[in-house]
């Protein structure tokens, strides 16, 4: 659905800055190409959000970290930084509240105007995609400030994919808002987007092409999987699937009486009175 975009391709370069103690980070530069997926991991407060915010603002040594972000090896043109219409980057922040005093429809129309005007036909597509990410339906008439955390996140991801439609996508802890993260990942991958995601989710972290490890506000190492983690990834996929099934049952009100294997046997909805 977003693969049809004709936006030019970009290579993004992160040049190292300093961690909280003023020490140089554990790399010189990270180059991110179209189609790459990178995960960012690290304890809370270790600077994960600061790193993707540096990318979003195309920092030029003017943030706390002192990093520089280049596009195609050069200082990006000013319009990339200042004009949403030219910005090749979409960022889904950790915020799960939107303060805008607008309906969903008004918000989307204004965002379309900011990004690339004349595409009002994308309204329905955006809402429909958002609704595949969340269990609670969003409508065009909903107030932005009334959306739940998960609805806000689902909406912002759909907005970034369809209205933003950028070659570079940054996601800050999408797994935390109770949205269907696998559906989100499916929608994101496939195109030739470069995706950078901050995550505490083991499966998402390990399936990325590269894994950036943060410590004390700086990058401490970059791990490039050599295939040795493949067994673990497969285990995680199974664990994830089981967890998802159990989670869905709990969400739908199932009560359990014994171990997890039994929890997986009960059909969703069995012995439950909902709706």
């Amino acid at each position: 659905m977003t693969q049809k975009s004709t936006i030019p391709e970009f290579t993004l370069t992160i040049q190292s800055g300093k961690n909280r103690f003023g020490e140089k980070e554990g790399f010189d530069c990270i180059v991110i190409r179209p189609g790459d997926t990178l995960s960012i991991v690290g304890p809370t407060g270790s600077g994960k959000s600061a790193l993707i915010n540096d990318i979003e603002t195309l920092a030029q040594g003017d943030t706390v970290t002192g990093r520089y972000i280049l596009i195609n090896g050069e200082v990006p043109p000013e319009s990339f930084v200042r004009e949403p219409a030219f910005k090749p980057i979409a960022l889904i922040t950790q915020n799960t509240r939107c303060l805008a005093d607008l309906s969903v429809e008004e918000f989307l129309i204004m965002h379309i105007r900011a990004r690339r005007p004349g595409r009002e036909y994308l309204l329905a597509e955006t809402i429909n995609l958002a609704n595949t990410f969340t269990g609670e339906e969003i409508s065009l008439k909903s107030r932005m400030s009334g959306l739940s955390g998960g609805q806000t996140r689902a909406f912002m991801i759909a907005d970034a994919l369809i209205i933003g439609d950028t070659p570079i996508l940054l996601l800050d802890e999408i797994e935390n808002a109770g949205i269907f993260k696998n559906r989100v990942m499916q929608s994101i991958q496939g195109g030739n987007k470069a995706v950078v995601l901050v995550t505490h989710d083991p499966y998402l972290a390990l399936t990325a092409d590269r894994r950036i490890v943060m410590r004390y506000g700086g990058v401490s190492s970059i791990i490039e999987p050599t295939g040795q983690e493949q067994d673990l990834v497969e285990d995680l996929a199974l664990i994830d699937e089981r967890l998802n099934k159990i989670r869905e049952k709990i969400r739908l009100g199932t009560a359990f009486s014994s171990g997890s294997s039994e929890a997986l046997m009960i059909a969703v909805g069995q012995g439950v009175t909902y709706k």
Partner: protein
Amino acid sequence: MKLLIIAGPPSGGKTAVIRQIIKNLPEDALPAFLKIDVVHATEDVELAEEFGIPVKKVYSGDVCPDHMGILVLDDALNWAKSLSRNTLIIESAGLCLRCTPYTTGSLGIAVISAISGTNSPLKMAPLLALADVAVVTKTDLISQAEKEVFRESIRKVVPSIDIVETNAVQGTGLRYLMRRIDNHPDMGSEPVVLRGSPPLGVCTICIGKKEIGWKNHFGVIRPLDMPEPIYRGD
């Protein structure tokens, strides 16, 4: 001398932006600072301590702080000159949204917080329309899409204004503001005047008459159902 006039609603981040300006000014810019507020302000003491620059403060009390700013501006310029300063930074109280403090020869900077509501640019239209630059603060507290929608909302009010988005506490993105300040010429020898026309403000409430209702007043008055104010009296 360069004159920077910074205006915006309370707690919008004016002082945070000014701190970043002072930090990033070239060495020979030698700033002096004047704060104008209604009843309470501490910026003068804070900035003097932090940067060791000359500061002054004026309380406007019963008078509109923007009017007060204009009344003292001439003296303030002379004060800064007498101390051989090259830049005068004025922070307005920004309470009166009908007046604007920007003058000819100055760089007018409107500071407005990204979390102040999508329609807030409409409500403070003169403050933005007569400014040279709109600095949007607190962008670290909202999502990218909201930031872009807020920008669009400013554009609706003033299509061509230079917009600078920042986390003013850290100074992110202010390089564009610093460049603008850098390129701004020193004040010439022409007399400095207000950019906008001051609003009509001559009625008998201005001079202390407390009765409600236009029938009890003279000067510029307005009944509820009349589209424009009218003049009553001789």
